[in-house]
Protein backbone atom coordinates (compact mmCIF):
# COMPACT_ATOMS: atom_id res chain seq x y z
CA UNK A 1 0.00 0.00 0.00
CA UNK A 2 2.76 2.38 0.98
CA UNK A 3 4.72 1.58 -2.15
CA UNK A 4 1.65 2.20 -4.26
CA UNK A 5 1.06 5.51 -2.63
CA UNK A 6 4.68 6.56 -2.98
CA UNK A 7 4.65 5.71 -6.67
CA UNK A 8 1.48 7.70 -7.16
CA UNK A 9 2.99 10.75 -5.49
CA UNK A 10 6.24 10.46 -7.46
CA UNK A 11 4.35 10.15 -10.74
CA UNK A 12 2.15 13.13 -9.98
CA UNK A 13 5.13 15.27 -8.99
CA UNK A 14 6.83 14.23 -12.22
CA UNK A 15 3.77 15.19 -14.24
CA UNK A 16 3.51 18.58 -12.59
CA UNK A 17 7.21 19.14 -13.16
CA UNK A 18 6.94 18.17 -16.81
CA UNK A 19 3.92 20.41 -17.25
CA UNK A 20 5.91 23.28 -15.80
CA UNK A 21 8.92 22.69 -18.06
CA UNK A 22 6.63 22.36 -21.04
CA UNK A 23 4.87 25.58 -20.21
CA UNK A 24 8.19 27.41 -19.89
CA UNK A 25 9.35 26.06 -23.24
CA UNK A 26 6.07 26.98 -24.90
CA UNK A 27 6.25 30.50 -23.58
CA UNK A 28 9.88 30.95 -24.55
CA UNK A 29 9.06 29.78 -28.08
CA UNK A 30 5.94 31.92 -28.12
CA UNK A 31 3.66 29.03 -29.03
CA UNK A 32 1.02 29.88 -26.50
CA UNK A 33 0.63 33.59 -27.14
CA UNK A 34 -2.72 34.91 -28.23
CA UNK A 35 -1.47 36.39 -31.50
CA UNK A 36 -0.86 33.19 -33.37
CA UNK A 37 -1.34 32.05 -36.89
CA UNK A 38 -1.78 28.33 -37.44
CA UNK A 39 -0.76 27.00 -40.83
CA UNK A 40 -1.69 23.55 -42.07
CA UNK A 41 0.47 22.57 -45.03
CA UNK A 42 2.00 19.60 -46.82
CA UNK A 43 5.21 18.27 -45.31
CA UNK A 44 8.29 20.15 -46.52
CA UNK A 45 6.28 22.62 -48.58
CA UNK A 46 7.42 26.01 -47.27
CA UNK A 47 10.84 27.56 -46.79
CA UNK A 48 11.30 27.82 -42.99
CA UNK A 49 13.28 31.04 -43.47
CA UNK A 50 10.13 32.66 -44.81
CA UNK A 51 8.24 31.72 -41.68
CA UNK A 52 10.94 33.35 -39.60
CA UNK A 53 10.76 36.44 -41.78
CA UNK A 54 6.98 36.60 -41.42
CA UNK A 55 7.26 36.29 -37.65
CA UNK A 56 9.76 39.10 -37.54
CA UNK A 57 7.71 41.39 -39.77
CA UNK A 58 4.37 40.96 -38.08
CA UNK A 59 5.28 40.03 -34.53
CA UNK A 60 2.85 37.14 -34.84
CA UNK A 61 3.83 33.67 -33.72
CA UNK A 62 3.33 30.95 -36.25
CA UNK A 63 2.34 27.37 -35.56
CA UNK A 64 3.19 25.18 -38.52
CA UNK A 65 1.60 21.78 -38.90
CA UNK A 66 1.77 19.34 -41.76
CA UNK A 67 -0.44 16.74 -43.42
CA UNK A 68 0.39 14.09 -45.98
CA UNK A 69 -2.76 13.80 -48.04
CA UNK A 70 -5.69 15.97 -49.00
CA UNK A 71 -8.03 13.48 -47.42
CA UNK A 72 -6.26 13.57 -44.05
CA UNK A 73 -6.45 17.35 -44.09
CA UNK A 74 -10.15 17.30 -44.93
CA UNK A 75 -10.93 15.03 -42.00
CA UNK A 76 -9.15 17.25 -39.50
CA UNK A 77 -10.88 20.39 -40.78
CA UNK A 78 -14.31 18.78 -41.12
CA UNK A 79 -13.99 17.49 -37.60
CA UNK A 80 -14.06 21.05 -36.33
CA UNK A 81 -11.83 20.50 -33.29
CA UNK A 82 -8.97 22.31 -34.99
CA UNK A 83 -8.27 25.98 -35.54
CA UNK A 84 -6.17 26.20 -38.65
CA UNK A 85 -6.02 29.68 -40.15
CA UNK A 86 -4.42 28.63 -43.43
CA UNK A 87 -4.53 25.36 -45.32
CA UNK A 88 -3.07 24.39 -48.67
CA UNK A 89 -5.27 21.78 -50.38
CA UNK A 90 -5.16 20.72 -54.03
CA UNK A 91 -7.72 21.85 -56.55
CA UNK A 92 -10.18 18.94 -56.47
CA UNK A 93 -10.22 19.13 -52.70
CA UNK A 94 -10.88 22.87 -52.79
CA UNK A 95 -13.87 22.18 -54.95
CA UNK A 96 -15.11 19.66 -52.45
CA UNK A 97 -14.48 21.97 -49.49
CA UNK A 98 -16.41 24.77 -51.18
CA UNK A 99 -19.30 22.39 -51.76
CA UNK A 100 -19.23 21.35 -48.14
CA UNK A 101 -19.08 24.96 -47.01
CA UNK A 102 -15.78 24.57 -45.15
CA UNK A 103 -14.00 27.68 -46.47
CA UNK A 104 -14.25 31.39 -45.79
CA UNK A 105 -14.47 33.76 -48.77
CA UNK A 106 -11.32 35.85 -49.24
CA UNK A 107 -11.24 39.62 -49.13
CA UNK A 108 -9.31 40.55 -52.26
CA UNK A 109 -8.86 44.13 -51.02
CA UNK A 110 -6.55 42.79 -48.36
CA UNK A 111 -4.44 41.01 -50.96
CA UNK A 112 -2.82 43.78 -53.03
CA UNK A 113 -0.11 41.42 -54.26
CA UNK A 114 -2.65 39.24 -56.00
CA UNK A 115 -1.88 41.20 -59.18
CA UNK A 116 1.37 39.27 -59.56
CA UNK A 117 -0.35 35.96 -60.21
CA UNK A 118 -0.34 34.66 -63.78
CA UNK A 119 -3.88 35.15 -65.18
CA UNK A 120 -3.62 31.66 -66.68
CA UNK A 121 -3.91 30.27 -63.17
CA UNK A 122 -6.71 32.50 -61.96
CA UNK A 123 -10.44 31.93 -62.23
CA UNK A 124 -10.24 28.19 -62.88
CA UNK A 125 -13.13 25.73 -62.84
CA UNK A 126 -12.64 24.58 -59.28
CA UNK A 127 -12.94 28.08 -57.81
CA UNK A 128 -14.47 30.62 -60.18
CA UNK A 129 -13.24 34.14 -59.48
CA UNK A 130 -10.82 32.85 -56.84
CA UNK A 131 -13.36 33.62 -54.18
CA UNK A 132 -11.92 31.07 -51.79
CA UNK A 133 -8.42 30.19 -52.88
CA UNK A 134 -5.16 31.76 -54.05
CA UNK A 135 -2.62 29.78 -56.11
CA UNK A 136 0.43 28.65 -54.12
CA UNK A 137 2.25 26.23 -56.41
CA UNK A 138 1.44 24.18 -59.46
CA UNK A 139 3.02 21.16 -61.01
CA UNK A 140 2.60 18.24 -63.35
CA UNK A 141 2.79 14.46 -63.29
CA UNK A 142 5.63 13.02 -65.35
CA UNK A 143 8.45 10.53 -65.53
CA UNK A 144 11.71 10.93 -63.69
CA UNK A 145 14.48 8.63 -64.88
CA UNK A 146 18.09 7.84 -64.19
CA UNK A 147 20.11 7.99 -67.40
CA UNK A 148 23.07 6.19 -65.83
CA UNK A 149 21.11 3.16 -64.73
CA UNK A 150 19.19 2.67 -67.97
CA UNK A 151 20.36 1.20 -71.22
CA UNK A 152 21.44 3.86 -73.69
CA UNK A 153 19.02 2.69 -76.34
CA UNK A 154 16.02 3.23 -74.14
CA UNK A 155 14.17 6.38 -75.02
CA UNK A 156 11.72 7.80 -72.56
CA UNK A 157 9.47 10.36 -74.09
CA UNK A 158 5.96 8.98 -74.20
CA UNK A 159 3.86 7.25 -71.58
CA UNK A 160 3.94 4.13 -73.77
CA UNK A 161 7.70 3.90 -73.33
CA UNK A 162 7.11 2.68 -69.79
CA UNK A 163 5.74 -0.57 -71.22
CA UNK A 164 9.11 -1.37 -72.82
CA UNK A 165 9.88 -5.01 -71.91
CA UNK A 166 13.51 -4.08 -71.31
CA UNK A 167 12.49 -2.08 -68.23
CA UNK A 168 11.73 -5.11 -66.12
CA UNK A 169 11.52 -4.28 -62.42
CA UNK A 170 12.73 -0.72 -62.96
CA UNK A 171 9.70 1.48 -62.26
CA UNK A 172 8.41 3.15 -59.11
CA UNK A 173 4.85 4.40 -59.25
CA UNK A 174 3.38 6.96 -56.92
CA UNK A 175 0.71 5.39 -54.73
CA UNK A 176 -2.26 7.40 -55.85
CA UNK A 177 -5.25 6.19 -57.83
CA UNK A 178 -5.87 9.18 -60.06
CA UNK A 179 -2.23 9.69 -61.02
CA UNK A 180 -1.68 6.08 -62.01
CA UNK A 181 -4.97 5.51 -63.82
CA UNK A 182 -4.53 8.99 -65.26
CA UNK A 183 -1.31 8.26 -67.10
CA UNK A 184 -2.69 4.99 -68.38
CA UNK A 185 -5.75 6.85 -69.72
CA UNK A 186 -3.46 9.46 -71.24
CA UNK A 187 -1.39 6.80 -72.94
CA UNK A 188 -4.62 5.60 -74.55
CA UNK A 189 -5.37 9.21 -75.54
CA UNK A 190 -8.35 9.45 -73.25
CA UNK A 191 -9.11 12.26 -70.86
CA UNK A 192 -7.92 11.60 -67.32
CA UNK A 193 -11.29 12.80 -66.10
CA UNK A 194 -13.23 10.19 -67.97
CA UNK A 195 -16.12 8.47 -66.26
CA UNK A 196 -16.65 6.06 -69.13
CA UNK A 197 -16.35 2.63 -67.56
CA UNK A 198 -15.10 0.95 -70.73
CA UNK A 199 -12.23 3.40 -71.07
CA UNK A 200 -11.39 3.01 -67.40
CA UNK A 201 -11.36 -0.75 -67.62
CA UNK A 202 -9.19 -0.56 -70.72
CA UNK A 203 -6.77 1.68 -68.82
CA UNK A 204 -6.69 -0.71 -65.91
CA UNK A 205 -6.06 -3.68 -68.18
CA UNK A 206 -3.24 -1.82 -69.82
CA UNK A 207 -1.77 -1.17 -66.38
CA UNK A 208 -1.93 -4.88 -65.58
CA UNK A 209 0.47 -5.43 -68.48
CA UNK A 210 2.87 -2.98 -66.84
CA UNK A 211 3.22 -5.08 -63.66
CA UNK A 212 6.42 -6.92 -64.71
CA UNK A 213 8.14 -3.56 -65.00
CA UNK A 214 6.99 -2.22 -61.66
CA UNK A 215 9.36 -2.39 -58.74
CA UNK A 216 7.12 -0.78 -56.16
CA UNK A 217 4.14 1.50 -55.66
CA UNK A 218 5.18 3.93 -52.95
CA UNK A 219 4.72 7.38 -51.43
CA UNK A 220 7.17 10.05 -50.33
CA UNK A 221 9.93 7.46 -49.86
CA UNK A 222 10.36 7.49 -53.62
CA UNK A 223 12.48 10.65 -53.37
CA UNK A 224 15.08 8.95 -51.21
CA UNK A 225 15.05 5.69 -53.17
CA UNK A 226 15.46 7.39 -56.54
CA UNK A 227 18.31 9.51 -55.24
CA UNK A 228 20.00 6.36 -53.95
CA UNK A 229 19.82 4.75 -57.42
CA UNK A 230 17.41 2.04 -56.30
CA UNK A 231 15.50 2.08 -59.58
CA UNK A 232 15.77 3.66 -63.00
CA UNK A 233 12.34 5.21 -63.38
CA UNK A 234 9.72 6.88 -61.25
CA UNK A 235 6.32 8.29 -62.12
CA UNK A 236 5.79 11.24 -59.83
CA UNK A 237 5.00 14.93 -59.43
CA UNK A 238 7.26 17.53 -60.99
CA UNK A 239 8.31 19.19 -57.75
CA UNK A 240 9.36 15.92 -56.19
CA UNK A 241 11.29 15.20 -59.37
CA UNK A 242 13.04 18.58 -59.13
CA UNK A 243 14.05 17.81 -55.57
CA UNK A 244 15.46 14.42 -56.59
CA UNK A 245 17.39 16.02 -59.43
CA UNK A 246 19.12 18.41 -57.04
CA UNK A 247 20.42 15.45 -55.08
CA UNK A 248 21.31 13.17 -57.97
CA UNK A 249 22.58 14.65 -61.21
CA UNK A 250 21.91 11.54 -63.25
CA UNK A 251 18.18 12.09 -62.93
CA UNK A 252 16.03 13.80 -65.53
CA UNK A 253 12.32 14.58 -65.91
CA UNK A 254 10.01 14.28 -68.90
CA UNK A 255 6.46 15.45 -69.35
CA UNK A 256 4.94 13.14 -71.96
CA UNK A 257 3.32 15.03 -74.84
CA UNK A 258 0.13 12.91 -74.90
CA UNK A 259 -1.03 14.88 -71.95
CA UNK A 260 -0.86 14.66 -68.22
CA UNK A 261 -2.25 16.14 -65.07
CA UNK A 262 -1.63 19.72 -64.02
CA UNK A 263 -2.42 20.36 -60.39
CA UNK A 264 -2.68 23.40 -58.21
CA UNK A 265 -2.14 23.70 -54.51
CA UNK A 266 -3.91 26.81 -53.32
CA UNK A 267 -3.97 28.68 -50.04
CA UNK A 268 -7.39 28.79 -48.38
CA UNK A 269 -8.83 30.00 -45.10
CA UNK A 270 -10.87 27.22 -43.46
CA UNK A 271 -14.10 28.04 -41.64
CA UNK A 272 -12.40 27.08 -38.39
CA UNK A 273 -9.90 29.97 -38.62
CA UNK A 274 -9.43 32.02 -35.46
CA UNK A 275 -7.26 34.75 -36.92
CA UNK A 276 -8.69 35.67 -40.32
CA UNK A 277 -6.87 38.99 -40.41
CA UNK A 278 -3.47 37.34 -39.96
CA UNK A 279 -4.39 34.70 -42.51
CA UNK A 280 -4.91 37.39 -45.13
CA UNK A 281 -1.64 38.98 -44.06
CA UNK A 282 0.12 35.70 -44.58
CA UNK A 283 -1.39 35.03 -47.99
CA UNK A 284 -0.37 38.49 -49.15
CA UNK A 285 3.09 37.94 -47.69
CA UNK A 286 3.48 34.75 -49.72
CA UNK A 287 2.25 36.54 -52.85
CA UNK A 288 5.02 39.13 -52.62
CA UNK A 289 7.31 38.40 -55.58
CA UNK A 290 10.56 38.14 -53.61
CA UNK A 291 9.00 35.72 -51.13
CA UNK A 292 7.32 33.62 -53.80
CA UNK A 293 10.63 33.43 -55.68
CA UNK A 294 12.54 32.37 -52.58
CA UNK A 295 9.94 29.74 -51.76
CA UNK A 296 9.89 28.36 -55.31
CA UNK A 297 13.66 28.04 -55.39
CA UNK A 298 13.55 26.21 -52.09
CA UNK A 299 10.66 23.85 -52.84
CA UNK A 300 11.16 23.03 -56.51
CA UNK A 301 7.53 23.23 -57.62
CA UNK A 302 6.48 25.81 -60.18
CA UNK A 303 5.28 29.16 -58.91
CA UNK A 304 2.22 30.84 -60.44
CA UNK A 305 3.66 34.24 -59.54
CA UNK A 306 4.71 36.07 -62.74
CA UNK A 307 6.72 38.79 -61.05
CA UNK A 308 8.54 36.18 -59.01
CA UNK A 309 9.70 34.47 -62.18
CA UNK A 310 11.63 37.59 -63.11
CA UNK A 311 13.51 37.46 -59.82
CA UNK A 312 14.44 33.82 -60.09
CA UNK A 313 17.44 32.12 -61.60
CA UNK A 314 16.73 32.16 -65.38
CA UNK A 315 18.01 28.62 -65.60
CA UNK A 316 15.09 27.43 -63.49
CA UNK A 317 12.48 29.60 -65.13
CA UNK A 318 13.48 28.68 -68.68
CA UNK A 319 13.50 25.00 -67.86
CA UNK A 320 10.68 23.73 -70.03
CA UNK A 321 10.39 20.57 -67.99
CA UNK A 322 9.07 22.54 -65.06
CA UNK A 323 7.73 25.64 -66.75
CA UNK A 324 6.36 24.09 -69.93
CA UNK A 325 5.39 26.42 -72.80
CA UNK A 326 1.74 27.31 -73.41
CA UNK A 327 1.34 24.74 -76.16
CA UNK A 328 2.15 21.96 -73.71
CA UNK A 329 0.15 23.42 -70.84
CA UNK A 330 -2.92 23.39 -73.06
CA UNK A 331 -2.74 19.63 -73.29
CA UNK A 332 -2.57 19.23 -69.53
CA UNK A 333 -5.75 18.54 -67.64
CA UNK A 334 -6.90 19.58 -64.19
CA UNK A 335 -8.55 16.84 -62.12
CA UNK A 336 -12.24 17.46 -61.95
CA UNK A 337 -14.28 16.52 -58.94
CA UNK A 338 -15.94 13.43 -60.38
CA UNK A 339 -18.22 12.80 -57.46
CA UNK A 340 -18.08 10.13 -54.80
CA UNK A 341 -19.27 7.26 -56.93
CA UNK A 342 -16.78 7.71 -59.75
CA UNK A 343 -13.90 8.31 -57.37
CA UNK A 344 -14.78 5.10 -55.59
CA UNK A 345 -14.67 3.34 -58.95
CA UNK A 346 -11.21 4.80 -59.66
CA UNK A 347 -10.02 3.57 -56.28
CA UNK A 348 -11.49 0.15 -56.81
CA UNK A 349 -9.73 -0.25 -60.16
CA UNK A 350 -6.49 1.00 -58.66
CA UNK A 351 -6.72 -1.52 -55.83
CA UNK A 352 -7.41 -4.31 -58.30
CA UNK A 353 -4.37 -3.25 -60.28
CA UNK A 354 -2.20 -3.18 -57.16
CA UNK A 355 -3.23 -6.74 -56.37
CA UNK A 356 -2.65 -7.95 -59.90
CA UNK A 357 -0.01 -10.66 -59.96
CA UNK A 358 3.00 -10.50 -62.15
Amino acid at each position, binding site marked *: *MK*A*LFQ*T*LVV*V*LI*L*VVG*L*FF*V*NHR*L*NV*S*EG*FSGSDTL*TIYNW*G*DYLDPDLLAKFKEETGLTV*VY*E*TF*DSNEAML*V*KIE*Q*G*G*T*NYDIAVPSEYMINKMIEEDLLLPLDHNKLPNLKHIDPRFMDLVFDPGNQYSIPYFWGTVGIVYNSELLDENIVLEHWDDLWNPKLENEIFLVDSAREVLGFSLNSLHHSLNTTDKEKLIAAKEKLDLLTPNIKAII*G*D*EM*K*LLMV*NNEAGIGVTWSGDAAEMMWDNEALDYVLPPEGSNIFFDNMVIPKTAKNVEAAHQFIDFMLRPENAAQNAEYIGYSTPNLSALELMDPEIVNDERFYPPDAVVERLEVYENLGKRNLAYYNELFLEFKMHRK
Partner: protein
Amino acid sequence: MRKLGLLSKAYLVIVFFILYAPIFYLIYYSFNSGGNMSGFESFTLDYYRDLTENTRLIIIVINTLIIALLSAVISTILGVFGALAIVEVKRNRMKSTLLALNNVLIVSPDVIIGASFLILFTIVGIQLGFTSVLLSHVAFCIPIVVIMVLPKLQEMSPSLVDAARDLGATKRDVLMKVIIPYISPGIFAGFFMALTYSLDDFAVTFFVTGNGFSTLAVEIYSMARMGISLEINALTTIIFIITVIVVLAVYIFTRDKRKKGGTVRS
Protein backbone atom coordinates in the same frame (compact mmCIF):
# COMPACT_ATOMS: atom_id res chain seq x y z
CA MET B 1 18.23 -25.79 -16.46
CA ARG B 2 19.61 -28.08 -19.10
CA LYS B 3 22.68 -26.80 -20.83
CA LEU B 4 22.02 -25.42 -24.31
CA GLY B 5 23.42 -27.35 -27.21
CA LEU B 6 25.51 -25.66 -29.85
CA LEU B 7 22.65 -25.63 -32.33
CA SER B 8 20.25 -24.06 -29.86
CA LYS B 9 22.82 -21.43 -29.02
CA ALA B 10 23.37 -20.60 -32.65
CA TYR B 11 19.63 -20.38 -33.17
CA LEU B 12 19.30 -18.01 -30.22
CA VAL B 13 22.10 -15.81 -31.50
CA ILE B 14 20.56 -15.64 -34.97
CA VAL B 15 17.14 -14.73 -33.62
CA PHE B 16 18.51 -11.98 -31.42
CA PHE B 17 20.69 -10.72 -34.23
CA ILE B 18 17.71 -10.41 -36.55
CA LEU B 19 15.69 -8.64 -33.87
CA TYR B 20 18.38 -6.15 -32.94
CA ALA B 21 20.21 -5.60 -36.21
CA PRO B 22 17.81 -2.94 -37.59
CA ILE B 23 18.06 -0.92 -34.37
CA PHE B 24 21.83 -1.01 -34.37
CA TYR B 25 21.86 -0.14 -38.05
CA LEU B 26 19.88 3.01 -37.24
CA ILE B 27 22.12 3.82 -34.30
CA TYR B 28 25.26 3.34 -36.37
CA TYR B 29 24.13 5.84 -38.97
CA SER B 30 23.08 8.42 -36.39
CA PHE B 31 26.80 9.22 -36.18
CA ASN B 32 27.24 9.56 -39.94
CA SER B 33 28.29 12.97 -41.20
CA GLY B 34 27.23 12.01 -44.74
CA GLY B 35 23.62 12.99 -44.08
CA ASN B 36 22.04 9.77 -45.36
CA MET B 37 21.97 6.06 -44.66
CA SER B 38 23.73 4.83 -47.78
CA GLY B 39 27.37 5.28 -46.91
CA PHE B 40 29.26 6.08 -43.73
CA GLU B 41 31.53 9.10 -44.11
CA SER B 42 32.87 10.11 -40.74
CA PHE B 43 31.89 10.29 -37.12
CA THR B 44 29.81 13.28 -35.98
CA LEU B 45 27.53 14.27 -33.13
CA ASP B 46 25.82 16.98 -35.19
CA TYR B 47 22.41 15.31 -35.14
CA TYR B 48 22.46 15.06 -31.37
CA ARG B 49 23.26 18.75 -31.17
CA ASP B 50 20.43 19.52 -33.60
CA LEU B 51 18.12 17.54 -31.37
CA THR B 52 18.93 19.56 -28.27
CA GLU B 53 18.27 22.75 -30.18
CA ASN B 54 14.98 21.50 -31.55
CA THR B 55 12.64 22.89 -28.89
CA ARG B 56 9.57 21.68 -30.70
CA LEU B 57 10.78 18.10 -30.50
CA ILE B 58 11.64 18.47 -26.82
CA ILE B 59 8.15 19.78 -26.15
CA ILE B 60 6.74 16.78 -27.98
CA VAL B 61 8.86 14.37 -25.94
CA ILE B 62 7.60 16.00 -22.75
CA ASN B 63 4.02 15.86 -24.02
CA THR B 64 4.43 12.17 -24.69
CA LEU B 65 5.74 11.56 -21.18
CA ILE B 66 2.96 13.57 -19.56
CA ILE B 67 0.31 11.72 -21.52
CA ALA B 68 1.87 8.34 -20.73
CA LEU B 69 2.24 8.98 -17.00
CA LEU B 70 -1.17 10.55 -16.53
CA SER B 71 -3.06 8.02 -18.60
CA ALA B 72 -1.24 5.18 -16.84
CA VAL B 73 -2.17 6.55 -13.39
CA ILE B 74 -5.80 7.25 -14.27
CA SER B 75 -6.34 3.97 -16.09
CA THR B 76 -4.69 2.04 -13.25
CA ILE B 77 -7.08 3.54 -10.72
CA LEU B 78 -10.11 2.93 -12.92
CA GLY B 79 -8.89 -0.50 -13.99
CA VAL B 80 -8.40 -1.69 -10.39
CA PHE B 81 -11.95 -0.68 -9.58
CA GLY B 82 -13.10 -2.45 -12.71
CA ALA B 83 -11.30 -5.65 -11.75
CA LEU B 84 -12.74 -5.48 -8.22
CA ALA B 85 -16.21 -5.10 -9.67
CA ILE B 86 -15.80 -8.03 -12.04
CA VAL B 87 -14.63 -10.28 -9.20
CA GLU B 88 -17.58 -9.24 -7.07
CA VAL B 89 -20.09 -10.28 -9.72
CA LYS B 90 -21.58 -13.56 -8.55
CA ARG B 91 -23.43 -14.76 -11.64
CA ASN B 92 -21.03 -16.60 -13.90
CA ARG B 93 -22.76 -15.63 -17.12
CA MET B 94 -22.57 -11.95 -16.26
CA LYS B 95 -18.94 -12.26 -15.24
CA SER B 96 -17.83 -13.85 -18.48
CA THR B 97 -19.82 -11.31 -20.47
CA LEU B 98 -18.05 -8.46 -18.68
CA LEU B 99 -14.69 -10.11 -19.24
CA ALA B 100 -15.43 -10.69 -22.89
CA LEU B 101 -16.44 -7.05 -23.31
CA ASN B 102 -13.16 -6.06 -21.70
CA ASN B 103 -11.12 -8.35 -23.92
CA VAL B 104 -12.78 -7.20 -27.10
CA LEU B 105 -11.28 -3.76 -26.47
CA ILE B 106 -7.81 -5.25 -26.18
CA VAL B 107 -8.12 -7.32 -29.31
CA SER B 108 -9.81 -4.77 -31.56
CA PRO B 109 -7.40 -2.97 -33.91
CA ASP B 110 -6.08 0.42 -32.88
CA VAL B 111 -7.25 1.91 -36.13
CA ILE B 112 -10.86 1.13 -35.31
CA ILE B 113 -10.53 2.47 -31.78
CA GLY B 114 -8.87 5.63 -33.08
CA ALA B 115 -11.45 6.23 -35.78
CA SER B 116 -14.35 5.68 -33.40
CA PHE B 117 -12.83 8.09 -30.89
CA LEU B 118 -12.45 10.67 -33.61
CA ILE B 119 -16.14 10.31 -34.43
CA LEU B 120 -17.10 10.42 -30.76
CA PHE B 121 -15.06 13.55 -30.05
CA THR B 122 -16.54 15.19 -33.11
CA ILE B 123 -20.09 14.51 -31.96
CA VAL B 124 -19.44 15.59 -28.39
CA GLY B 125 -17.49 18.61 -29.59
CA ILE B 126 -14.23 18.04 -27.73
CA GLN B 127 -11.32 19.94 -29.26
CA LEU B 128 -8.62 17.71 -30.64
CA GLY B 129 -5.42 18.04 -28.65
CA PHE B 130 -4.22 17.21 -25.17
CA THR B 131 -7.62 16.27 -23.72
CA SER B 132 -8.71 14.07 -26.59
CA VAL B 133 -5.39 12.19 -26.63
CA LEU B 134 -5.42 11.73 -22.86
CA LEU B 135 -9.01 10.48 -22.83
CA SER B 136 -8.43 7.96 -25.58
CA HIS B 137 -5.20 6.70 -24.01
CA VAL B 138 -6.95 6.21 -20.67
CA ALA B 139 -9.69 4.36 -22.49
CA PHE B 140 -7.49 1.86 -24.25
CA CYS B 141 -5.28 1.34 -21.18
CA ILE B 142 -8.10 0.41 -18.79
CA PRO B 143 -8.77 -3.07 -20.23
CA ILE B 144 -5.07 -3.86 -20.02
CA VAL B 145 -4.95 -2.92 -16.35
CA VAL B 146 -8.04 -5.01 -15.67
CA ILE B 147 -6.41 -8.02 -17.32
CA MET B 148 -3.25 -7.56 -15.28
CA VAL B 149 -5.01 -7.13 -11.93
CA LEU B 150 -7.73 -9.76 -12.28
CA PRO B 151 -5.58 -12.92 -11.89
CA LYS B 152 -4.15 -11.61 -8.62
CA LEU B 153 -7.67 -11.01 -7.31
CA GLN B 154 -8.81 -14.44 -8.38
CA GLU B 155 -5.91 -16.23 -6.77
CA MET B 156 -6.54 -14.43 -3.47
CA SER B 157 -8.16 -16.78 -1.02
CA PRO B 158 -11.61 -15.60 0.11
CA SER B 159 -10.78 -16.73 3.62
CA LEU B 160 -8.40 -13.77 3.90
CA VAL B 161 -11.32 -11.39 3.53
CA ASP B 162 -13.52 -13.49 5.80
CA ALA B 163 -10.85 -13.51 8.47
CA ALA B 164 -10.48 -9.75 8.29
CA ARG B 165 -14.24 -9.34 8.58
CA ASP B 166 -14.38 -11.69 11.58
CA LEU B 167 -11.73 -9.64 13.28
CA GLY B 168 -13.88 -6.56 12.94
CA ALA B 169 -12.47 -4.86 9.87
CA THR B 170 -14.82 -2.47 8.10
CA LYS B 171 -15.41 -2.77 4.37
CA ARG B 172 -12.95 0.04 3.81
CA ASP B 173 -10.30 -1.62 5.96
CA VAL B 174 -10.70 -4.85 4.06
CA LEU B 175 -10.13 -3.05 0.79
CA MET B 176 -7.24 -0.86 1.86
CA LYS B 177 -5.43 -3.18 4.24
CA VAL B 178 -6.08 -6.62 2.81
CA ILE B 179 -7.08 -6.63 -0.82
CA ILE B 180 -5.01 -3.81 -2.28
CA PRO B 181 -1.73 -4.77 -0.61
CA TYR B 182 -2.28 -8.31 -1.83
CA ILE B 183 -2.85 -7.34 -5.42
CA SER B 184 -0.29 -4.55 -5.54
CA PRO B 185 2.17 -6.51 -7.75
CA GLY B 186 -0.67 -6.77 -10.26
CA ILE B 187 -1.35 -3.07 -9.93
CA PHE B 188 2.29 -2.22 -10.62
CA ALA B 189 2.35 -4.56 -13.58
CA GLY B 190 -0.82 -2.95 -14.90
CA PHE B 191 0.63 0.51 -14.42
CA PHE B 192 3.79 -0.29 -16.35
CA MET B 193 1.91 -2.04 -19.12
CA ALA B 194 -0.38 0.97 -19.46
CA LEU B 195 2.67 3.23 -19.48
CA THR B 196 4.35 1.36 -22.31
CA TYR B 197 1.15 1.02 -24.31
CA SER B 198 0.55 4.73 -24.07
CA LEU B 199 4.17 5.61 -24.86
CA ASP B 200 4.32 3.72 -28.10
CA ASP B 201 0.77 4.11 -29.32
CA PHE B 202 0.64 5.46 -32.82
CA ALA B 203 -2.63 4.58 -34.51
CA VAL B 204 -5.09 5.88 -31.92
CA THR B 205 -3.10 9.04 -31.28
CA PHE B 206 -2.77 9.70 -34.99
CA PHE B 207 -6.54 10.02 -35.27
CA VAL B 208 -7.15 12.22 -32.28
CA THR B 209 -4.27 14.72 -32.33
CA GLY B 210 -4.57 18.23 -33.64
CA ASN B 211 -4.06 21.89 -32.86
CA GLY B 212 -0.32 21.75 -32.48
CA PHE B 213 -0.39 18.88 -30.03
CA SER B 214 1.58 15.84 -31.03
CA THR B 215 3.26 12.81 -29.50
CA LEU B 216 6.57 11.28 -30.37
CA ALA B 217 5.21 8.36 -32.38
CA VAL B 218 3.13 10.61 -34.59
CA GLU B 219 5.93 13.12 -34.97
CA ILE B 220 8.49 10.49 -35.96
CA TYR B 221 6.04 9.19 -38.53
CA SER B 222 5.66 12.59 -40.14
CA MET B 223 9.41 13.23 -39.94
CA ALA B 224 10.14 9.90 -41.59
CA ARG B 225 7.77 10.66 -44.45
CA MET B 226 9.72 13.77 -45.29
CA GLY B 227 12.79 11.63 -45.76
CA ILE B 228 16.29 11.70 -44.80
CA SER B 229 16.98 13.63 -41.59
CA LEU B 230 19.28 11.64 -39.36
CA GLU B 231 17.80 13.45 -36.38
CA ILE B 232 15.33 10.57 -36.29
CA ASN B 233 18.21 8.15 -35.88
CA ALA B 234 19.68 10.23 -33.09
CA LEU B 235 16.33 10.34 -31.34
CA THR B 236 15.87 6.60 -31.77
CA THR B 237 19.29 6.01 -30.26
CA ILE B 238 18.48 8.09 -27.19
CA ILE B 239 15.13 6.39 -26.71
CA PHE B 240 16.75 2.99 -27.09
CA ILE B 241 19.39 3.77 -24.48
CA ILE B 242 16.79 5.10 -22.06
CA THR B 243 14.67 1.98 -22.57
CA VAL B 244 17.64 -0.26 -21.85
CA ILE B 245 18.41 1.71 -18.68
CA VAL B 246 14.80 1.52 -17.51
CA VAL B 247 14.60 -2.21 -18.17
CA LEU B 248 17.85 -2.77 -16.26
CA ALA B 249 16.60 -0.62 -13.38
CA VAL B 250 13.33 -2.52 -13.15
CA TYR B 251 15.23 -5.80 -13.30
CA ILE B 252 17.58 -4.84 -10.45
CA PHE B 253 14.71 -3.39 -8.44
CA THR B 254 12.53 -6.49 -8.70
CA ARG B 255 15.45 -8.84 -8.09
CA ASP B 256 16.23 -7.12 -4.78
CA LYS B 257 12.57 -7.20 -3.83
CA ARG B 258 12.28 -10.87 -4.58
CA LYS B 259 15.28 -11.68 -2.44
CA LYS B 260 13.87 -9.72 0.44
CA GLY B 261 10.44 -11.25 0.01
CA GLY B 262 12.02 -14.68 -0.03
CA THR B 263 13.81 -14.21 3.27
CA VAL B 264 10.74 -12.82 4.97
CA ARG B 265 8.61 -15.70 3.91
CA SER B 266 11.03 -18.45 4.82
